[in-house]
């Protein structure tokens, strides 16, 4: 069995894995980190989203052997170093009722954190009118940029409000 190393929420792990193991299964089944959720297991829902080497990624379509050496931050590790262990984005989700069952929430929160970085770096999106101008993060932009995370409870109104608040406060609060 191949040996892989991952740094997960600040802790280093080295372990032998079956070559077929996805990063999602490694996190949940081998390391007991159940923050990332298995929704569809086919890249279609976003509930398995983490930050991998600083960017939002789906873990269900990533083989552990192929992402060996990566640094992963899950929703469980995002709060590290923040007051009450709560990342400002997670806090905004709480205050804006941005969930109902909560199943999609860890993925939504990681995705929103990654999205705020992309906005700061000036990445264009599908709805960006002028590819050369600075992005105006209006509601259309935020909806488009969060469209890779589905919410079966339909908490989108709250999610949008939370994300809007994070953008307004400069992404870090």
């Amino acid at each position: 069995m191949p040996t892989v190393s991952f740094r997960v929420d600040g802790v280093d792990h080295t372990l032998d894995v079956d070559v077929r193991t996805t990063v999602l299964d490694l996190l949940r089944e081998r390391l007991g980190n159940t923050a990332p959720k298995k929704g569809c297991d086919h890249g279609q829902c976003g509930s398995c989203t983490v930050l991998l080497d600083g960017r939002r990624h789906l873990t269900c379509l990533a083989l552990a052997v192929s992402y060996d050496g990566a640094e992963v931050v899950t929703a469980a590790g995002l709060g590290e170093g923040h007051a009450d262990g709560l990342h400002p984005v997670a806090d905004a989700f709480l205050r804006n009722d941005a969930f109902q069952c909560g199943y999609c929430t860890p993925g939504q929160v990681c995705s929103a954190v990654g999205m705020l970085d992309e906005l700061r770096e000036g990445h264009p999106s599908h709805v960006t009118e002028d590819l050369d101008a600075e992005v105006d993060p209006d509601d259309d932009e935020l909806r488009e940029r969060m469209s890779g995370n589905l919410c079966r409870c339909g908490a989108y109104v709250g999610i949008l409000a939370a994300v809007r608040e994070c953008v307004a406060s400069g992404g870090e609060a």
Partner: protein
Amino acid sequence: MRPFDYLRPDDVATAVRAVADDPDARFLAGGTNLVDHLKLGVARPGLLVDVRGLPLHDVEVADVGGGTVLRVGANVRNSDLAAHPVVRREFPAVARALVSAASAQIRHQATTGGNLLQRTRCVYFQDVSTPCNKREPGSGCSAVEGFARYNAVLGASPECVTVHPSDLAVALAAVDASVVTDGPAGERRLPVAELHRLPGDAPEKDTVLEHGELITAVELPASPVAQRSTYYKARDRASYAFALASVAAGLELDGDVVRDVRIVWGGVAHKPWRALRAEEALRGERFSEEAVLAAADAELEQAETSPGTAFKVPMVRGATALVLGRLAGGGR
């Protein structure tokens, strides 16, 4: 999922040899398509050769024969390519096609080479319990009389009626991009428009590449039609969905006369469909919406539809007028 051996070479020659020598081997890039296929049983390779350790991560501007070419390594991620300043300025159709595809997460993971070689989203291809000539040659095509919404209207065969799902490939064809490959027979360059093939009687072959042939780069030559280009995608929901039909187009006007034009359609054929008849009808003509619609009609005379796909003809016709009208008005 069938167990497989895994290799991660750091030089191109080793990677090419590893796949070329083993009929059961496949390249692996970001994995967003292939890992799904491993799970579904659509792909059952005995060996995966990971290309992400190969030094194919750069985007560079090169001078080739007096012209400027943007050379994009096969491992450049879809998100990075879309955000690249030269792509946004000189090849807007490419940036727009990239950001219209999949989700931000997937675009961070997906590579340029993998995107071009992603396989069809035909529901029967992805369901191993149903006949599909592309997955299992000779087993039949379930889509001919089945779910048709994503089927082709141009260039299909009785053996396979599916379309190629990549948005990027459509835009690259419209800016005259080439793919650079390295294979058992050495290096070669071919236009992106000639990479994918029509299904004919061998739908199991998506492209003209040989087994073990690795895409190392894509080259985009700067040109007036590329600089004034854009991409439009019609789909069933506003985001995170494949194209029902799409248009990548570039336009160079001399006053109000069309000096040069590119029109490539996605979602309608087994490959990006370069609308050569439409382009020919427009070149040298005074630009007008009527002229564009007549040109699209000239191309669409070859269309063959079923009740499930008939909607695509007016859709791609209207989208073509919309896109070229936008370009003529200075938009991109």
